[in-house]
């Protein structure tokens, strides 16, 4: 009898200690998880009403630029930018599929935002001060540089060899502007999407394809007859395009990007989208807990107006 009482008392004590320890660890109150989380850290900005009411995102992404935005063999949108969009859907609605994708090739990105046809544009969107006058950008999320894709036997080894050559790129891009300003002795061949620009380069109609590093690396990896030159230029980070003046949206997006940076989510996304041999090189281009980068300071001239 006495032993039974001792055992029962010890058991009750143990249960009580464990319960107290668990409730202490989770914040003390046996209320909703939200309030417990609220007490543990500051509240994240709320999802803007227009997206919350629609119960899904409408996000513009590239449809022909691996590894950032492309259509995979199953006919689904895939890529680095597309995965960020899925993470936003998870953060907003708890489900990764609550997002409708719209194709946003280079010339369509700003009109999609200014006309309200998309909530966000995550489409290899380089920040420029000129674009910032018409739309808003989130914090920088990918630090891209421009590169030249040339054939293996090409005489072009850097941007100083471009005189008299034909350069293919996309219409309205920073390369379009930069070449028109700084390489007037080269011929520019602009197409409305990267696929056609690449076809023109493949077929020898242009001597080089000038574009973002991450867009060109898969082309160089897949085509044994072409390579990237070593020089980098126009180091310009990507941002997420947001309609001008939508402060609530920008706050939401920046906060979730900060969260993904802290949790090293971008490394996971990078591994999903880039061949293993490129991961180490590209890990310097993404946001990581110890890797910070931002847009050029306000006083600096716009990169595509600065000639080498």
């Amino acid at each position, binding site marked *: 009898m006495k032993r039974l009482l001792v055992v029962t008392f010890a058991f009750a004590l143990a249960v009580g200690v464990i319960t107290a320890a668990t409730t202490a660890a989770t914040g003390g109150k046996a209320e909703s998880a939200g309030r417990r989380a609220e007490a543990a850290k500051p509240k994240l900005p709320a999802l803007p009403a227009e997206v919350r009411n629609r119960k899904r995102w409408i996000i513009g992404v590239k449809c022909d630029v691996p590894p950032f935005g492309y259509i995979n063999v199953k006919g689904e949108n895939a890529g680095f930018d597309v995965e960020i969009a899925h993470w936003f859907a998870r953060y907003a609605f708890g489900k990764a599929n609550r997002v409708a994708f719209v194709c946003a090739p*280079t*010339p369509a990105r*700003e*009109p999609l935002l200014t006309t309200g046809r998309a909530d966000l544009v995550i489409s290899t969107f380089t920040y420029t001060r*000129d674009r910032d*006058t*018409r739309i808003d950008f989130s914090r920088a999320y990918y630090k891209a540089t421009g590169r030249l894709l040339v054939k293996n036997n090409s005489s072009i080894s850097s941007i100083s060899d471009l005189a008299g050559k034909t350069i293919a790129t996309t*219409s*309205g891009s920073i390369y*379009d*502007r930069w070449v*028109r300003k700084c390489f007037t002795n080269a011929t520019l*061949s*602009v*197409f*409305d999407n990267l696929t*056609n620009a690449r*076809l*023109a380069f493949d*077929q*020898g*109609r242009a001597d080089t394809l000038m574009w973002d590093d991450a867009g060109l690396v898969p082309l160089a990896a897949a085509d044994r007859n072409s390579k990237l030159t070593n020089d980098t230029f126009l180091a310009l980070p990507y941002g997420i395009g947001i309609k001008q003046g939508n402060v609530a949206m920008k706050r939401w997006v920046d906060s979730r990007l900060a969260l993904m940076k802290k949790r090293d989510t971008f490394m996971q996304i990078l591994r999903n989208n880039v061949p293993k041999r490129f991961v180490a090189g590209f890990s310097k281009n993404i946001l990581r807990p110890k890797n910070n980068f931002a847009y050029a300071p306000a006083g600096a001239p716009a990169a595509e107006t600065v000639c080498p």
Partner: protein
Amino acid sequence: MTLALTYDLWGFLSENWEALLRGLGRTIEVSAIAVIGSFLIGLVLGAARAHRVPVVSQLATIYVEVIRNTPILVQIFFLYFGLGQFESTRFDVFTVAWLSITIWGGAFNTENFRAGFEAVPYRFREAGLALGFSRLATFFNVTLPIGGRIALPSSINTYIAVVKNTALLYVIAYEELTTTAFQIQALTLETLEAFTLIGIVYLILVWSLSAGIRVLESHLALPEAR
């Protein structure tokens, strides 16, 4: 690049008139080659089909059916990027520009001329043959003058379409008027100004072409038609 918050057509024109003028020149160049080319193709193949010339009329039928039943954009892409995959068939952009539009216009014009030639009453051709003209001479002296005039109004439609379809050369980056305007508006976002301007230019261009052909038509009209 200046930010376009307001509609400034004159400013757009004064900043970009050289590039747009070059583009207009190229549009006129390609349109002229294509109109003349499609006229000649239409004339020859239409005559072949109307007179049931063996082999030629069958080949012409295949040509007409293939070109009329596929979108012109597909044809342009096929000639430039499709055939361009092989070095031996890799044409430069100007060649593809006038060739694709000419081939397209020729197919439609073939049907216009065939209808025109077949509309010539058979008794006229009979009369020609009875007078001792050879079949070819009958064609040149009887069928062509009458049938060509009958075909003229419908071929105006084809020539108008030929000029407007040069705008599709945008997809192969041939720097004609529409491509130039698209590229400028991609850089400056003066979208409405760009499209208003080229809309006006095309209106004037195409209207002048059809007015010119109508003048030609009244000039050529047979006495009883006046």
